[in-house]
């Protein structure tokens, strides 16, 4: 949900709540005003009638004076139950002749004995329909006012919010375009609201720090892999000299062999890491037309001995003479990694299908089920259990693909590892 929609909706909901509560209170107030007004007239009329009864001793025709229903009954004897004066005002429903229907009335009743041994009862009914109509009318008038006010307020608020949040949205769009790999500083537009200015400052500082850390880390990896190369080369050369020594026993040879193998492994790992950091640092600038077909053939040639050893059958299908615009070294690394991957993770007497299409390269090979999510092989150091390689091959493939916006997909279906590279 958008921020603006959310604030507007909340604003509307709260306004509605306030409106309903306010309306109810308002209704009660109007109602009590009307009631006290009606009660007042009832009491005034009652007083006039009672005075007439007590002083004049008869009942004049009040309907001429008061335009509503009045019933007065005078008895020439006192009534026992009226010894104590009874007076009450209640709500009642009655037929109204002018309205010609039953409408709500206020009803005043007085029952009393006079001092001269007579008794009387007074019933006055005042229709409240007109008053209620007034209440409803006022209520609707207020409602219309309230709604229009609300509409104006909400739209003004919406408009203001939209205007006020512009720097915020600008910041967000800049942030989403920001790519730490590109090594460009994060530039945020000037904001004239203090909070947004603060936000931009904090974000800029943070991005600078991250950028610095990122560069440091990259340089660190680069330096480490570069600096370890020489000692590794020395270790290997010294071992090579060492094994030339006469009279080395089987045991010593085995020790040297495992040192040598570990050094070789470390050296391979180091080469891969240094390659990844070089790709990260965009050190492969030269771009040429690379013949995919040619480079694939060349790499198959390189690994021919390995392929023969595993008795793997290669089925190559070229639908198009595909040329890629990329660095020739990286193209070679990409293809050789893919082919090595297909050879190493193959079975004895397996098959490798290579299909070069106009916009994709598909390498399919027989192999055992990796028994895990194939996507993880694109991460560094992730490999199938029991694999002896450092697990950087596909990670390098992924890096190169990212650099040229190729799309790599890996899946395992029906006994085949399928690697598809979309250009």
């Amino acid at each position, binding site marked *: 949900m958008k921020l603006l929609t959310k604030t507007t909706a909340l604003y509307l909901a709260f306004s509605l709540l306030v409106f309903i509560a306010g309306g109810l209170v308002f209704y009660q107030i109007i109602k009590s005003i009307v009631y006290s007004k009606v009660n007042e007239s009832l009491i005034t009329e009652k007083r006039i009638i009672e005075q007439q009864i007590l002083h004049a001793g008869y009942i004049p025709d009040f309907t001429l004076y008061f335009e509503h229903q009045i019933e007065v009954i005078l008895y020439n004897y006192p009534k026992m139950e009226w010894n104590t004066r009874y007076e009450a005002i209640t709500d009642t429903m009655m037929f109204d002749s002018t309205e010609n229907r039953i409408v709500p009335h206020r009803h005043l009743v007085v029952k009393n004995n006079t001092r001269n041994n007579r008794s009387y009862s007074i019933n006055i009914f005042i229709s409240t329909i007109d008053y209620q109509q007034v209440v409803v009318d006022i209520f609707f008038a207020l409602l219309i006012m309230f709604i229009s006010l609300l509409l104006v307020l909400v739209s003004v608020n919406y408009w203001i919010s939209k205007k006020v949040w512009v720097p915020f949205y600008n910041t967000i769009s800049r942030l989403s375009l920001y790519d730490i790999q590109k090594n460009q500083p994060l530039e945020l537009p000037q904001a004239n609201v203090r909070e947004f200015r603060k936000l931009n400052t904090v974000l800029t500082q943070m991005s600078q720090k991250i950028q610095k850390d990122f560069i440091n880390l990259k340089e660190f990896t680069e330096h480490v892999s570069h600096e370890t190369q020489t000692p590794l080369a020395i270790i290997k050369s010294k071992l090579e*000299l060492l094994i030339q020594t006469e009279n080395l026993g089987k045991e010593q040879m085995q020790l040297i062999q495992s040192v040598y193998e570990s050094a070789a492994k470390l050296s391979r790992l180091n080469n891969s890491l240094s390659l990844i950091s070089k790709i990260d640092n965009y050190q492969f600038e030269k771009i040429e037309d690379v013949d995919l077909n040619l480079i694939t053939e060349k790499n198959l040639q*390189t690994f021919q001995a390995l392929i023969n050893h595993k008795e793997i059958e290669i089925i190559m299908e070229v639908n198009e003479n595909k040329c890629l615009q990329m660095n020739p070294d990286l193209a070679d690394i990409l293809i050789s990694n893919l082919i090595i991957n297909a050879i190493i993770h193959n079975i004895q007497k397996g098959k490798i299908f290579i299909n070069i299409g106009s916009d994709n390269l598909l390498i399919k090979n027989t192999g055992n089920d990796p028994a895990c999510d194939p996507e993880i092989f694109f991460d560094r150091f992730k490999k199938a259990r029991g694999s002896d390689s450092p697990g950087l091959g596909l990670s390098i493939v992924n890096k190169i693909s990212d650099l040229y916006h190729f799309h790599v997909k890996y899946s395992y279906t029906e006994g085949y590892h399928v690697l598809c590279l979309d250009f």
Partner: protein
Amino acid sequence: MKVLIIEDEKELLDSVVAYLKQEGYICEAASDFETGLEKISLYQYDCIIVDINLPDGSGLNLINHLKNISSETGVIITSVRRSLEDKITGLDIGADDYLTKPFHLSELNARIKSLIRRRSYSGKKEIVLNEITIIPDTFRVFVNNHELALTKMEFDLLMYFIANKDRVLTKESIAEHLSGDNIEMAGSFDYIYTHIKNLRKKILDKGGDDYIETIYKMGYKFKSV
């Protein structure tokens, strides 16, 4: 045979010198550009091995300088992996071969031998070892005057063995020699066994000796006696 090695990494330099000395070369070493330049100017070498990235100058300039005074000397340049540009420039200005670092000493040795053989106009064009005769130009091999039918890989293997005879060759160095640097990524070199087995069998079939000795787990050795 005089060889000059120019390499700034002292330990590596020592290893190269030690290995080549065992081969009977007269080795001289220089660990920086200045010393290298001095030696090139003063003495005559059959072959120089030069690192491109020296702390006080580029090995490429040394080659330029060398080519101005003597074109007879063979040049092998060494450089870190994947710097194709260096390789092309180096070969353009007259280097004879290129080796990526880190390299196997046995590989360097084989390259020097091949280079010297190619450059010696006067020398014989055959390599003879006991009953084995190799004519590298035509890729032909004879054992007791019977020609062997070798595959390209077996021929390369034999040449590599003979260049490094009586040396222990690691499986890795053999694999890289046969298939190139990229094979290193495969991490598995057992496949060379088949080729070694075939080569040994072909030599034995023609009445040759069993020259190839398996060094437990490590690799192989071509015994000349």
